[in-house]
């Protein structure tokens, strides 16, 4: 019978427990991160989902001379606070466009005021007076008030009245800015990467450029905003708040991302491809243009998409170049004042009205949907390109 070392046994048990605990820490860390992610999405979706519905109430609209003079006469007095001001204001215009309406009374579903909307959705901070609450309750029984799909959220621009505010103008602004960013950053980024990876002699200047690109990738985005303000706006005279200045600023910010990704993609193309092409008498540019670049394309696309997705969600530098102004209309050109989706989210989030909060969250849902799709596409590209060699 061997002598049993109880002390060693106890020590071993202790060490095993420590071993298990260590693994648990790791598990706990991952769980924490994923739990946060879940909580975040549940919270944002819970806040934003109601914004995809909008209250409408059924009222008799009087298309009369009196309405033409003062739009407040369009509905009976007791309904005046229940319908949206933005709709009321447009009644005389509508009458001018459709003269046959004059003198008729029609029952119509019209846009409800935001307090009515919030009350119907059961939000605490609706601020609807109790007099109107009973009215709405009664109308609910009669079926003259309803919640319908909020198509205006996608077809209207910004507004000071939440029931009339939508993301169309900022979405178009985002697309415009992103197009400019892409037009500038992708060619310049890819060209820089080609030069550094395929042509640059290994000298001090090349090393300087390389160090510089790595540093640029780490510079806080807000400093790009300072650059845009000082150089593009104050020095070059690009119009403030325009899509052009936003696109250029974001392009400079995205450049290092694209360069780094493209270089990695070029480096992944095996040298045997280059040597074979040289062997057939191709010039160095032909080697790159006809052989290396097409093979590196999936990697370049992945990097570009990731960089552009990052640019699309960026806000700080755009605030500095003035893209947070109140802009109700989609821009007509790249020189006009523009807003973008993240900036719209920012301006809405600082509004005090409760109805704006759900619109902010809904805007966030739209933005996240676009960005997550872009990232998923990028990952697909990467996975498809990974096993080529």
């Amino acid at each position, binding site marked *: 019978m061997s002598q049993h070392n109880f002390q060693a046994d106890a020590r071993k048990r202790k060490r095993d427990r420590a071993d298990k605990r260590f693994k648990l820490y790791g598990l706990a860390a991952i769980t924490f991160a994923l739990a946060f992610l879940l909580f975040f999405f549940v919270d944002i979706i819970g*806040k934003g989902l109601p914004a995809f519905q909008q209250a409408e109430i059924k009222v008799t609209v009087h298309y009369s001379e009196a309405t033409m003079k003062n739009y407040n006469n369009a509905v009976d007095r007791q309904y005046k606070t229940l319908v949206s001001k933005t709709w009321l204001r447009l009644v005389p215009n509508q009458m001018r466009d459709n003269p046959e309406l004059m003198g008729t009374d029609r029952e119509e579903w019209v846009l409800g005021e935001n307090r009515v909307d919030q009350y119907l959705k059961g939000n605490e901070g609706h601020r609807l007076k109790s007099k109107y609450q009973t009215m709405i309750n009664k109308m609910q029984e009669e079926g003259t008030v309803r919640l319908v799909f909020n198509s205006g959220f996608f077809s209207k621009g910004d507004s000071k009245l939440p029931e009339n505010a939508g993301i169309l103008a900022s979405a178009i602004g985002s697309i415009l800015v992103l197009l400019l960013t892409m037009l500038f950053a992708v060619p310049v980024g890819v060209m820089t990467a080609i030069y550094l990876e395929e042509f640059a002699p290994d000298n001090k200047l090349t090393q300087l450029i390389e160090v510089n690109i790595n*540093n640029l990738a780490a510079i806080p985005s807000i*400093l790009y905003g*300072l650059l845009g303000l000082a150089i593009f706006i104050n*020095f070059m005279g690009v119009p403030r708040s325009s899509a052009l200045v936003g696109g250029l600023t974001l392009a400079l910010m995205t450049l290092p991302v694209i360069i780094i990704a493209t270089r990695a993609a070029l480096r992944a193309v095996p040298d045997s491809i280059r040597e074979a092409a040289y062997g057939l008498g191709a010039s160095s540019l032909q080697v790159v243009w006809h052989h290396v670049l097409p093979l590196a394309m999936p990697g370049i696309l992945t990097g570009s998409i990731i960089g552009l997705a990052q640019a*699309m969600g960026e806000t700080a530098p755009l605030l500095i170049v003035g893209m947070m102004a109140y802009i109700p209309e989609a821009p007509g050109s790249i020189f006009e004042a523009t807003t973008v989706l993240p900036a719209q989210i920012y301006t809405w989030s600082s509004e005090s009205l409760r109805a704006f909060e759900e619109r902010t969250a809904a805007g966030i849902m739209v*933005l996240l949907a676009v960005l997550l799709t872009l990232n998923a596409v990028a990952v697909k590209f990467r996975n498809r390109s990974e096993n080529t060699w």
Partner: protein
Amino acid sequence: MIYSDLFFWLFGGLIPLGITAFMVARSRALGSEKDGARLHSLPGYYGWYAVIWLALPAMISGTLFSFAHMFGLFSIPAPMLLGAMFALGGAGLWYGVRHINVDFRAREKVEKVTTILLIIAASISVLTTIGIVLSVVFESVRFFQVISFWDFITGTKWEPDTAFLIGAGRDTTGIAAPAFGAVPIFAGTFMITAIALLVAVPVGLFSAIYMSEYASHAARGRLKPMLEILAGIPTVVYGFFAAITISPLIVKAAHALGLEADYTNALAPGLIMGVMIIPFVSSLSDDVITAVPQGLRDGSLALGTTKAETIRHIVLPAALPGIVAAFLLATSRAIGETMIVVMAAGLRPNLTANPLEGITTVTVKIVEALTGDQEFDSAFTQSAFALGFVLLIITLILNIVSTVVVRKFKQRYE
């Protein structure tokens, strides 16, 4: 707007002209191929050669004129400028096409121009850095001519309100001079960064350890993209979440514990910023942990250590330089982060150690100074550039140090 017309005509005019030039030159080159003599280059290169001779003079003259306009040297009306550009382009094209014959080495010329274009593209990134440095330094210098650098770095009072009046040239007798002591702002930045790192470093590091050492290959393949979603969420969204959801929760929790908390407390943005940086720390740490040679692990395990002991005493020390670099980069990320603090932290500079109080940060002050309707030339707006200058220096130092640390690490295994 002079610009928009110019752009329109330039591109609307040059693109069809370019296509024509390409076709003309290409067919001229092919036409010169007779009596058994073959072209030196592929026909397309002659086309490109003509396009270059068309576009280059037009572009260069346009750029020169717009620079002249920008510096206010002289300016000419847009139609004349356009006419001049097209005339130069046409002259260039004529000159270029005349060159084309069977022996002409078009490919070499085209490739030379292309290489120069590549070099120009590569220099844009350098110009960007110079641009950032210049824009920040230029305004900072003007700021420090009014406010002493020492007061800025060591002062504890940030009261810039009266700077407008001075900037507007108003009578300033009887008004307190504006104070630009940035210490409370730096302290606020430091506190939020510290909170963020307290969240991000342990969670990120342990996630990386779990994923690289414990998780199965399949689990890792699923967990990693999920963690990376955290990095893909825009900061403005995090800011909204911190301000609307987390801040009230913290105020409630503090109240339950009998503490007072502001709605603009430092904790909420700090925590959320920490969560945002988790994937950053975890993916960088994951890389260095995976790079530790398997032999080190096997040797340690063969000596009878448990897995945890191997990781703690062998793998982590070996990966330490990389982890330190990740930590430094995360710090620079947190210091420069803007939207979360703009939306969830306060505006009032506050020198405090209590994370439940409202505090402000460098980036908040930059945004505040530059998004109002103030005159550009007041010391208040210039203070934003001075703060940006400090931000730039700190980020660069952190980045350089982390690069040096990583380079040292690499030498150990190669």
